[in-house]
């Protein structure tokens, strides 16, 4: 199948609905730094909504909401690409031939679903006053696991033996680190 250029918007929704089909085109048409923007925004919105929930219940001030958003952006901007580099190292050790930029881009883009959920959660949080960090935030991160497995599988030439253990570890790390942050 021939690769075609697609916009970042198409890539985000494509990664959410059809990751295997979207990834090939995304790696050609989406710059690696735009992929990192996707994960930064996804985690910025997720952590920001955690702060917003705590603000609504009176446990934290508004400055914590801003701090949460900033911490989330930093998490998506630094931690997620670093995890991507770690994954690339594992793939390299198992004789993979993918470039580090491709691996980091694919990994960051797998959080496209989390970004869509994050935007929807923010709308529901601001417009209807819902507490959305678990309902939308955690759901978004969970939704990202499927595309992540498929993205890693595509990078390893269709093998599940690496993609599933890696995604399991990453999912656990993200869940625990977010929980630690929300209990600060």
């Amino acid at each position, binding site marked *: 199948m021939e690769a075609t250029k697609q916009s970042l918007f198409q890539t985000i929704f494509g990664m959410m609905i059809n990751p295997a089909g979207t990834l090939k085109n995304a790696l050609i048409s989406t710059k690696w730094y735009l992929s990192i923007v996707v994960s930064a925004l996804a985690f910025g919105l997720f952590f920001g909504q955690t702060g917003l929930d705590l603000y609504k219940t009176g446990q934290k001030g508004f400055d914590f909401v801003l701090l949460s958003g900033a911490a989330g952006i930093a998490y998506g901007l630094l931690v997620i690409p670093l995890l991507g580099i770690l994954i690339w190292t594992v793939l390299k050790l198992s004789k993979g031939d993918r470039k580090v930029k491709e691996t980091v881009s694919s990994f960051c883009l797998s959080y496209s679903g989390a970004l869509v959920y994050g935007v929807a959660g923010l709308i529901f949080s601001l417009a209807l006053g819902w507490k959305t960090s678990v309902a939308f935030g955690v759901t978004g991160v969970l939704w990202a*696991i*499927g595309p992540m497995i498929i993205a890693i599988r595509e990078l390893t030439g269709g093998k599940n033996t690496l993609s599933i253990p890696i995604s399991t570890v990453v*999912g656990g790390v993200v869940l625990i680190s977010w929980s630690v942050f929300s209990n600060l």
Partner: protein
Amino acid sequence: MKNLVRYLCFMAIGISAFANPLEPINLFRLGFGALAGLLFGWLFRIFLRSFLSLFNGKLKKEKGKVVIRNAVDSGMLFLTPFAVMMLIAVYYLNWSETRGFVSAGIMAVGTAAAIEMGRVNRRSKLP
């Protein structure tokens, strides 16, 4: 190996779903949860196989039931991260709300099985 992973995942899901945060290590609940998880897994597998058979009748006729069974069993492996995260959420983070993990896991399994079917379909159409 695939079967063992699947059994363990559904047992983990059942155990987490029936866990009581006030008494996490209750042998009766653990046993009941594991059995309920296995029963749920068995029903889900039958449902997914029937669903895929319904929409891939031609392929099933050409290649046999084994194609559907392999796609479903490969898709079921996608449950692993969700089952592990569910155990972390219940036994480490002390959450009691775990429905999101099950629904996201089921969605991922369905998608993976469908992708697997698509792959087989494409391969069978190649000259």
